[in-house]
């Protein structure tokens, strides 16, 4: 474990090292400005800052055209010690600049900004005129709505548009999403635990049961908060790590172990002597069993974790991209509180809501839980076995391994649009996409007109990392497109799209210059 963490740290540091001046992005790729309209007609300008680049805060200006009272409020930047400017405020990550006031219809925004690459190269000041109506918000629901245990997800047309409201709104949405997750099968393994708390030894009335459930949920939530903070600090690394076969395998095995315990293979509990000692200590403490219950909550986070992994991975990826520690921690804390809310209700209602079961029914229930848990183990392990299922390769892709190779292929595509598929064996939605979307005859016909390239980043080699970094991606799934003019198209497909949605995307790409 220690070695794993160390490796993680090392990978993080190398990914932070400077970019080579020879592979610098053109300014319009390093810094992308987009004007986003919110539901009530207000504006916000989103700046996407590629990893390894930064924008100077005091050289950023947004002015409405024609002139109106719209006022940009630049968020706080990070302090950078500049050898010749001293301490300056910079934006190293994507930043959203809200514009206060409702603009007259048709107002465009002239954005001026200037930035540099960490590699020690600066770009001339850029000026772009942003027009409204280019883009609309998509809600947080796109993230959680269908990515959950039900399987099959429909992300918005753009990976960057998930959230854009205030931090409080984002956190609130995470809370709601948590309640949603609590209603999935992921919660089953927690029910015996919570009922153990409520009905457990030393049950002394409703107040105490509620207090203990609350402590339990806090344990769960604080653990998630740590994960959120880690996501914000490590960028998107955590997400990629969570999708590694080893990690997935470990989670699946854990679920098998839980299932075996349900079947009565063994009793999942601490040795008797430990238990009584813990009880002794707990009874002397004012909070009763608070300590062990809190710990139980923290451990339960691990139990729920793998089950809610797909939406969690998406959320972590988002938080990692934001790099905002407060938002990361807050959002996942809220998510876990949401997950814990039904448990609190059970705690508050006390044993009354839990049906009194005979021993026979109870053991049948346990068997049922065991089967569900086994099913979940299989489901979690999907990335490990799905690739082995028989299934024809609907569409053939030409492999690309390096940035240079990709650029060569794009250059020689002359006149044909290009699709670049970032793929990995462990990427669930990549495989779903390949099995469900690509075989559609309409998609096959449409893709005949494309030069099809695939970057298989399963091995996570240095070349793979360079490819991902080149496009500012954190990992598969991702589909990128080049138009017939050989220019990278801004629209990307991140995540799964079904045949209809993907066909619409392809039509849009084809319709470009």
């Amino acid at each position: 474990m220690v070695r794993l963490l160390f490796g993680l740290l090392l990978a993080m540091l190398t990914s932070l090292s400077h970019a080579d001046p020879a592979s610098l992005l053109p300014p319009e790729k390093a810094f992308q400005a987009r004007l986003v309209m919110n539901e009530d007609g207000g504006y916000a300008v989103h700046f996407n800052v590629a990893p390894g680049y930064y924008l100077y805060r005091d050289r950023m200006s947004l002015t409405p055209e024609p002139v109106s009272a719209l006022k940009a409020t630049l968020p706080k930047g990070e302090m950078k010690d500049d050898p010749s400017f001293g301490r300056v405020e910079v934006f190293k990550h994507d930043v959203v600049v809200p514009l206060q006031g409702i603009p007259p219809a048709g107002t465009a925004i002239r954005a001026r900004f200037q930035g540099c690459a960490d590699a020690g190269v600066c770009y001339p000041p850029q000026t772009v005129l942003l027009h409204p109506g280019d883009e609309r918000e998509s809600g947080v629901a796109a993230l959680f709505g269908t990515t959950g245990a039900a399987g099959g997800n429909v992300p918005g047309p753009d990976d960057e548009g998930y959230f854009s409201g205030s931090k409080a709104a984002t956190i609130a949405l995470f809370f709601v999403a948590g309640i949603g997750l609590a209603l999935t099968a992921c919660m089953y393994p927690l029910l015996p635990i919570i009922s153990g708390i409520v009905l457990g030894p030393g049950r002394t009335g409703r107040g105490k049961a509620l207090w203990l459930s609350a402590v339990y949920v806090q344990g769960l939530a604080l653990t998630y908060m740590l994960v959120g903070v880690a996501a914000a600090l490590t960028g998107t690394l955590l997400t990629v790590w969570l999708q590694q076969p080893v990690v997935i395998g470990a989670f699946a095995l854990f679920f098998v172990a839980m299932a075996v315990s349900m079947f009565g293979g063994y009793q999942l509990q601490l040795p008797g002597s430990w238990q009584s000692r813990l009880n002794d200590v707990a009874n002397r403490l004012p909070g009763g069993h608070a300590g062990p219950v809190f710990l139980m909550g923290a451990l339960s986070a691990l139990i729920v974790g793998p089950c809610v992994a797909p939406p969690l991975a998406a959320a972590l990826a988002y938080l990692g991209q934001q790099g905002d520690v407060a938002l990361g921690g807050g959002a996942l804390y809220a998510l876990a509180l949401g997950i814990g809310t039904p448990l609190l209700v059970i705690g508050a209602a006390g044993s009354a809501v839990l049906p009194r079961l005979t021993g026979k029914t109870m053991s049948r229930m346990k068997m049922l839980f065991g089967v569900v848990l086994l099913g979940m183990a299989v489901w979690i392990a999907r990335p490990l076995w799905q690739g082995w299922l028989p299934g024809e390769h609907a569409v053939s892709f030409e492999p690309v391994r390096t940035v240079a190779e990709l650029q060569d292929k794009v250059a020689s595509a002359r006149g044909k649009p290009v699709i670049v598929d970032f793929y990995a064996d462990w990427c669930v939605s990549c495989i779903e996409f390949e099995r469900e979307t690509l075989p559609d005859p309409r998609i096959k016909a449409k893709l005949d007109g494309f030069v099809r390239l695939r970057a298989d980043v399963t091995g996570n080699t240095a070349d793979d990392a360079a490819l991902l970094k080149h496009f500012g991606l954190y990992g598969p799934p991702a589909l990128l497109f080049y138009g017939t003019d050989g220019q990278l198209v801004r629209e990307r497909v991140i995540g799964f799209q079904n045949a209809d949605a993907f066909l619409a995307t392809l039509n849009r790409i084809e319709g470009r210059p």
Partner: protein
Amino acid sequence: MTRLHARLAAATLAFISLTASAGSFFDAELKDLSGKPQKLATLQGKPLVVNYWATWCSPCREEIPEFVTLSKKYAGKVNFVGIAIDDAKSVGDFAKQYKISYPTLIGEADAMALMKAEGNAIGGLPYTAIYDGQGRRVTTHTGRLSAAQLESTLKTLK
């Protein structure tokens, strides 16, 4: 609408870079600090270091004192010229403050086009191009160039 704008901008840029690359670097003309046009042809005849920079560019500000030192050390053997992609006022102040001893020229779109024609497609600064005594471009470098790196190249030039 924006797509049209982008295309127009791209076309304009392509046009500018075409017109600039029509001649070589030494055919171009840029203004000096007093606003007088200067022919780059006058810099020919000796090895030449062309440093593109700007006052808003931190790595440029770091390397310029080293360029000044080297230009003094190689005085009479190697010509230096700074081309600032910036406004005249800031450049004038900076040149005085940093005691830049070699000629400094100023340009905006024209200097940018010249730099792109010299192979700096993305327009990042600082950018340094080195010519030999016959006016052939020997090497170019994007990003901060250390005194040691620059000097090792200068030693090979005739």
